């Protein structure tokens, strides 16, 4: 299967990213990215761009390599070939904490909160890379440590208040393990926001949520872009979420981009339908 989708010409040169909606400068740019585990090609020559203040959805059946894309972007895996550029500089091969400090925040598909820390601490811990106080400054409560602690606290309260009543004040001192599943997902997003990201990678933010909560997630994603100016790359299986918030949709199967474009365009694309549902049996019998 060729990597060419109908959305954009893959070999288009420097602005390999979005070919739609006025072509803003790409924040994230994957350039012919490949990743192999031994003989298994998890990703092949993937081109993907996310523009400034753009929401891009990554869809595809289970095992298509969506989470792998996130892991390569955030430095958990090193790409076998190709390049990852963030805000114009190559970040392939950097350690995860450095990439996070440059401004890429992420959440995890299987929740990975700091369960035995309080809600507030979960969020405050994510500011480590953006603060500088040395241990002795913290112990002696020197001015820089005190100032940073104040700022970090304010930032934490700010990102938690983004979720309104859901993560309201009385929960801040409770351990993260006491939160419900949906609230844990929200806290993961809050924690990622505390790294002050320019680009947010959301891995199935609506997984396991009921319809009302799913709707809330959809609104949340749009608000993140509109109120905070964050670019977002989101993996999601729920097509209501994908359809209602994404500017652009990229479909992946077996590590290969099979379609790219607007939601309606991609959802109706024969390669996408085939990846999700298999080949139409009538078409098969016709062919045979």
């Amino acid at each position, binding site marked *: 299967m060729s990597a060419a989708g109908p959305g954009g010409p893959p070999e288009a040169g420097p602005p390999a990213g979005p070919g739609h909606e006025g072509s803003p400068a790409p924040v994230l740019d994957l350039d012919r990215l490949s990743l192999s585990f031994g003989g298994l090609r998890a990703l092949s020559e993937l081109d993907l761009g996310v523009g400034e203040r753009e929401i891009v959805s990554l869809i595809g059946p289970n095992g298509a390599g969506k989470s792998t894309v996130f892991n390569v972007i*955030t430095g*958990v895996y090193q790409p076998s070939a190709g390049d990852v550029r963030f805000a114009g500089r190559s970040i392939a091969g950097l*350690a*995860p*904490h450095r990439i*996070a*400090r440059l401004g890429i*925040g*992420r959440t*995890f598909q*299987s929740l*990975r*909160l*700091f*369960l*035995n*820390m309080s809600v507030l*601490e979960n969020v*405050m*811990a*994510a*500011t*480590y*890379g*953006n*603060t500088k*106080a040395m*241990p002795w400054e*913290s*112990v002696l*409560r020197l001015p820089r*440590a005190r100032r*940073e*602690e104040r700022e*970090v606290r304010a930032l934490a309260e700010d990102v938690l208040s983004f979720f309104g*009543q859901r993560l*309201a*004040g*009385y*929960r801040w*001192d*409770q*351990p993260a*393990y*006491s*939160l*419900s599943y949906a*609230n844990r997902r929200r806290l993961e997003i809050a*924690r*990622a926001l*505390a*790294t002050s990201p320019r680009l947010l990678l959301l891995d199935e933010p609506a997984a396991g949520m009921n319809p009302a909560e799913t709707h809330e997630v959809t609104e949340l994603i749009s608000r993140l872009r509109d109120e905070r100016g964050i670019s977002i790359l989101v993996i999601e299986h729920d097509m209501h979420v994908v359809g209602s918030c994404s500017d652009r949709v990229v479909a992946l199967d077996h590590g290969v981009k099979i379609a790219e474009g607007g939601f309606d365009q991609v959802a109706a694309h024969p390669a996408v339908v085939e990846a999700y549902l298999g080949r139409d049996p009538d078409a098969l019998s016709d062919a045979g």
Partner: protein
Amino acid sequence: MSLDSPPPAGPQVGSDEWVARQAHRREYLPSWLGSLERASERAGWWPKLAAAAAAAAVLPLLGLGQFQLQVGIDALVIALLAVGLNIVVGWAGLLDLGYVAFFGFGAYGYALVSSGQIGANGIHLPSYLSIALVMVAAAGLGLVVGWPSRRLIGDYLAIITLFFGEAFVEFTNNVAPRTLGGPNGIVSVDPIRLFGYTFTSNQSYYYLLVVVLVVTMGVLRLLDTSRTGRAWRAVREDPLAAASMTIPVNRVKLMAFAFGAAVAALAGTIFAVQQVSVFPTDFDTPILILVYAGLILGGAGSIAGACTGALVVMVIYDGLLRSPTESGYLFYGLILLTLLAKLRPWRRLALVLAATVALGYAVHAIAAAISDSAVAGGPHSTGWIASALRDWVVVPANATVAGNWGFVVLVCLLIALVQVSSPWRAILLPPTLYLASFVWETRLATEAAITRQLMIGAILIVMMNARPQGLLGSRRVEALT
């Protein structure tokens, strides 16, 4: 917990807020203990620390003998070690089994730079300088040990650090005997002299240790609530997530190693000075086990817990279990307390106790009727316990062999006891209790060195069942992935 903005409908069954509140409530102890716990939660950390320090300062004025004072000093040293170990194990979640080597490094380091050991006249650095030097060097050593093991987790790290700990003992035993003294160690270490005051008496070292421990606990408390402390705990909870949240995992781990090593070295310097000498055997596995026992008993992850646990373990281990009388109180007291707490209904409890007493007198009468030598020995306990048990527990003239067999049978009976179901358990209990007393009076009370380790193990097992998070630790959950 603040309730500034309660949800409009109030708590509802099944909503996660209700669940969270209930979970929080369940963790308090019942009745007045619970209200005490809540009151101490409301008070900040430093009034509690100050109160504990004041209590520790008053203690020697109540007329402690030299032996009790020495127990106190040893307990404080182990408490300081446990508080340092808490950084590595409790916060950063690194299972460091070579921790005692840093303690030994501190002791040897101080003994080398503040004694007549090196050169014709020796090196006699001022105390503040040598203590600072040794702490910095230990932190450096912590980095050196941590660097190659920074990617190791769990069992791998444990085994590597265990090797390091053993290597340290071998090193001090065998390398450079002229400098390190081999098995004879280094003797005549300079006393600590600070601000023109020379610490000589045991009492002065007791107070020095109290001050050092309190300051260390305060410093660590401030560190715990800072960005560094949060990073340590985040790395313990989930290294991958921590890295994705801008935390440099390896550097944070190395920092924990270095801080733990510095605290251990500080404890080592005072330990070396207080006993005026250092020997390789002072830094072997038994100390490691005591420090870990204290940390686990008190609750890993809690500073107050680490300190309290270590003090409790050491006072029991070093203070009470050395004398047969006091260890007897502890032994019988623990058994009675366990029965009182666990055996229900009351009828069954009374029945088991009565049956045990009756069984004892019956066995004693039968044994005495068969042969005089079977009851010729007396109980090894002293004081009123001995007189109470004289006609109850059978102690033969030559008790060693019988006691050893009794111990084996006792272990079998204990295993059987936890395997069988309820009615059988009540039937099995009186002979088990009687046998326990028999083994204690014939063997255990005489072998204090072994018995006290068994007792510490038993206390840990009881604790593990009753309160897995330790005395002052908070309940932790493991991520199920």
